Structures are given as structure tokens and as C-alpha cells.
């Protein structure tokens, strides 16, 4: 009788994957692959690269699963692997250099946010669909997109981002500020056009 994994808890699924059980690996893949591909897609410039990053991320996940201690949720742990893999792949395939914007850094001072209005009316924001949001992110320059993804959506600190990308914290802050400003400008422009 074949073993079904759908009713098993996460720990049992992890143990199955560590033992190399293909059904367990398939179950893990089915559970998380869609979301992980979505995450990779936010960091890569196209779906092909995102798919490659997702596949590489899953291979790393299966190989490193023995080291997963369960201090965090499996999904959170996998998300971090996917982000790292996607960024590595992006950096490998693209020339990727980020610089401080002195004007923005001066404005920022010790604060993380430029002192300007970063709030949108709920009515305005509710009209935006998931695809609109993706399109807005994909239209951002590479540095803006990656830093905004890491900070605003995936919740990394500027220190972590700086370590991840090999840049200074000031650069991370300036990229984020410019990304927010550009995004808000794009959203408002879109509303005016519509």
C-alpha cells in the first residue's frame, strides 16, 4: 500500500524528504512550488530565470533539509533559500551595481524613510490588482526592485540587505527611498490616465 503524505504533518514530510522519498519530495514541491516561483519571479527579470532559480532553490532545500532545526516555519526557511538563490542567479546573469545617492542619503539622515508622504488612499490602492502590482515592481530598475522586495515585502532589515547584496546600509536605504517614490509616482500616474 502506497504511503500518502497529504495527511502527514510537516515534520514527517521533512523526514521523508531527508530519506530521499520521492513522494515526500513531490508533496513538498506541490505545497510550496507555486509560492516559491512567485517569490523568485519578483527577483528575476523573466519567468525562465525565475523557474531556474526555483528549481535550484528546491535542490538546495532538499540537500540542506537535514540542517533545518525547526526554529522557524519551513516555508520561511525555504523562502530565504529561494531569495538567496534568485538573487545569486540574477547577479550572475546581469551586471548588478548599486551606488549611494548622496542627495537621498542626506535627506534620510538616521531615519529609514524620506520625510514625504508614502501613504495612499485605500480607495486608490484597492483598485490595483495583483498583476498591476507585479507589473509595477517589474518596471522598477534592478536595484530598486531587489531592495524594495527584500525590505518591503520579505521583511529584511537594511543591515541584512547590505550583507546580502554586498552594499552599504546607506545604499540600501537610498535605493528603497527612490523605489517607493517611483512606485507612488507610477500609481498616481496610472490613476490619472485611467
Amino acid at each position, binding site marked *: 500500500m502506497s504511503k500518502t503524505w497529504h495527511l502527514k504533518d510537516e515534520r514527517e514530510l521533512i523526514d521523508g524528504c531527508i530519506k530521499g522519498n*520521492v513522494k515526500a*519530495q*513531490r508533496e513538498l*514541491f506541490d505545497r510550496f*512550488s*507555486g*509560492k516559491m*516561483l*512567485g517569490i523568485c*519571479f*519578483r527577483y528575476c527579470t*523573466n*519567468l*525562465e*530565470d*525565475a*523557474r*531556474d532559480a*526555483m*528549481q*535550484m532553490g*528546491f*535542490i538546495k532545500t*532538499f*540537500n540542506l533539509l537535514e540542517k533545518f532545526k525547526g526554529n522557524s516555519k519551513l516555508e520561511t526557511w525555504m523562502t530565504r533559500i529561494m531569495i538567496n538563490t534568485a538573487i*545569486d*542567479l540574477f547577479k*550572475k*546573469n546581469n551586471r548588478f551595481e548599486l551606488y549611494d545617492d548622496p542627495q537621498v542619503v542626506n535627506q534620510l539622515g538616521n531615519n529609514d524613510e524620506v520625510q514625504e508622504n*508614502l*501613504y*495612499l*488612499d*485605500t*480607495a486608490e*490602492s484597492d483598485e*490595483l*490588482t*495583483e*498583476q*498591476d*502590482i*507585479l*507589473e509595477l*515592481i*517589474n518596471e522598477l530598475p534592478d536595484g530598486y526592485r531587489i531592495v*524594495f522586495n527584500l*525590505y*518591503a*515585502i520579505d521583511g529584511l532589515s537594511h543591515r541584512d540587505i547590505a550583507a546580502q547584496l554586498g552594499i552599504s546600509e546607506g545604499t540600501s536605504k537610498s535605493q528603497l527611498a527612490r523605489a*517607493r517614490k517611483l*512606485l*507612488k509616482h507610477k*500609481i498616481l500616474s496610472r490613476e490619472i490616465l485611467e
Partner: protein
Amino acid sequence: MNKDRKHIDDLFREKLSGFELPTSDKDFEAIQLGLKQPKKKRFFLWLIIPALLLSIGASRYLLETFDAPGNRTVHTNPATPEDIGEIPASDASVPEDHELPLPTKPAEFSSTDLNVGSRNASDEKDTAPPAAPVYSDAIQTNEEPWNGLITLAFLKRLDRSIARWPLVGMEIPDQLMEQEQVWNQNPLLPNGRNTRFKPSVELIAGTNLGQQLIPPGESSNPRYREFKQNERTSPGLQLGVQANLSKMRNEFSSGLLYNQYRFHNDNFTILIYDSIPFRNTNGDTIAWIRRNYRDSVYAERQHLSYRAISIPIQYGYNYKIGSNWWLGASIGLRSSFFLPTKGASIDSRGSLRTNSEINIDPIQLNYMLGMQLRYAIDPAISLGFKMQYSGALDSQPNGAIRINDLNFQMNLRYEWYHR
């Protein structure tokens, strides 16, 4: 903050919190393929181990041939009349005590055999240690002296003055030692001072068989891995010069080597795919979704050459296994600087590129293990054959290809020989 307003970060986070994209069975198959990649082959290791065993066996055989009975006489009793006659004039001052027979084990040992009454113990109680017991019936003999528990054979093994071959533990015949001493004399030093380093230079020519190490980061791209794994090694070229400093059997070497590694790819398969657009509500294409794989085989033979300049640093240990033969082992490190290489490759999107730059690690550090057989044509000139394995030492931080290789070298050596 106003409840009707939303921070831009929160807006994006909420909208994308459940964002997913469809995946396919092909993705899972690619992952399985990546997981099932065979581990690093131990092919070269299986070549090295038999070679080492064969060499040790051969050296043992040769040594036994040279160490025939009668070459060396071990005198357990130097006081025999024949030996006294052979003592050179310079040794005439040897104290007479040395001519006393060594104590030997009596046939039957008992307390009555001890003679302790010849001295007055009370006279010398505070001025001298008690006299050692001697056997009353000790006789002069050439047999091994008995010393209780430790045999003379064992003591001989501890005797550093007797030259022995490492590993096999056999004594080195005198004539070989003499030859080795003479051959290792440094011409730059006064006669007889042969304990200093002796210089030599050699020209190296050989061939190599390379092995590409495809980094783990590439393993998830099955097209790339398939392409690289279909590449087979061809004998490459190795040229170089090397300088050595020898002190008896020890040798330190460094030099400059040019390596050319050659690979070819007779045929390989790449996967061609169709894509469908992923559009937003305005009809703009924002991404392409891959589907409908089909196979396509290219039969064209592809050639690829990597070129590198290497700087090796080695330590060697050489045995003199005959009047003209040396057998040696070496260990070392090698830094290689690879020149940019262009060739056929598969890019990350699965496209065939016929003239793109290969992603190879430009600076590689390798360890080296080698064995060498050398024949002396003349006291100053010798010809060597060396087999050497070189393995990648450090990790592959940038996901670039690295090279292991097996070298077969011929070298011509000139030594500064003391004439």
C-alpha cells in the same frame, strides 16, 4: 494614522502575500534530475592507489635484491681476533674495556652464580655505587648477548646510525649509501660537506587529462549539465621549467608550467521549448511561460581548450633504488591562472551559444600528488617519468568550472654534480 490611507509597503505586501505562479511536472523532473547527479567520481583516486601499491611492491623487490645476505656483517662481538686485526690505526686508542667479552646468558642461572664477595662493601659504602654482579662462568662467544627482555634485533632497529629505507624498514646497503652520499655532494661547497642543498634544473614536457568540475549551483539546469557532461577529455599539452633544491633524499621544487586542457563534444542534446505569453489586463506581455518541450540533437563536434599558467611548489622524497635509478613521491600545491576561453555553451535560458565566454574560475588552487621514476644517464644528467594527480582545493564561490587533471610528464634534469 488615518485608517483610509495605507502605507505603500503594506499595500504591496498585502497584494502579493498569496501570489503564486503555476508550476509543472517538468519542474519537478528537473529537480529530481539535479538531485540524482552522480557524486564526484573517484576515478583518479583508484588510479593513484594501485600505482602507490605497485611502487611500494616494486621498491621492496628491488631492495631485497640489493640487500642480499653477505653484503653486511653485523659483529655482535667486536673482540674476535679477525675484527681486532681490522681496526684502523686511528682507532688504536680505543680503551681496552671494549675488548672485554660481553656478558651472555648462562646455561643455568642461579644465585650461586653471582660473585659479590670480592669487595669489602663496608669500605666503599659512601664513596662508590655497589658493584654490578657478574657471571662467574661467563664465556666468550659470538652469540647474541642476552639482556633480559630486549633483544638485540630490537636495539638494532633503534640504532639511528644504521640507514634504513622508510616504510619497508630494511637496511640500505653500504655501497648504495656511499653512492648516494657522493651524488648528493654540493659542488659549491668544500669537498666532503654534502649535507647542504644541491641545486638542479629540469625541462618538463608532458600531457594531461582534464576533468571538469561542474559546480553544484549549475546542477539545477539539466541542459547545462548534460552539455558539460557530454564533453570528453582529450590529451592536452604541458610544458615547463622547474628548479629543485635537494638535500639527500629531500627535495623542494618550484617552477613555471604551461597547461592546455582539451575537451570535445561529439554530440549533445538540448531541449527546445515553446513559450506562451503571460499578460496583464491591458494585454501587455510581462512574462513568458515555458511549455511543450521537444528534443533536438546536434551532431557537430565541438572543441574546447582551456589554457593556464601554473606555479607549483612541491616537496619530494626520493629513494635511490639502484646505481642509476631513483623512485620518488611528491606532494605540493599549484596556483593556476586560466586565460579567458571561448567555446560552445548553453546559457541559463537553454540556448546554444557557439562562441561565448566559458564561465571558468580564473584562479584555481590545486593540491598535487605525484610519483616519479628517474634514470641517471650521467652523474649530472637524468631523465625522469612522472605521473601526477592535481585536484581542486578551494570551493567554487562564483559558480565557475574548475579543473582536476592527471599529468604524465617526461623531464630532463641537470644537476650540479661534485666532480
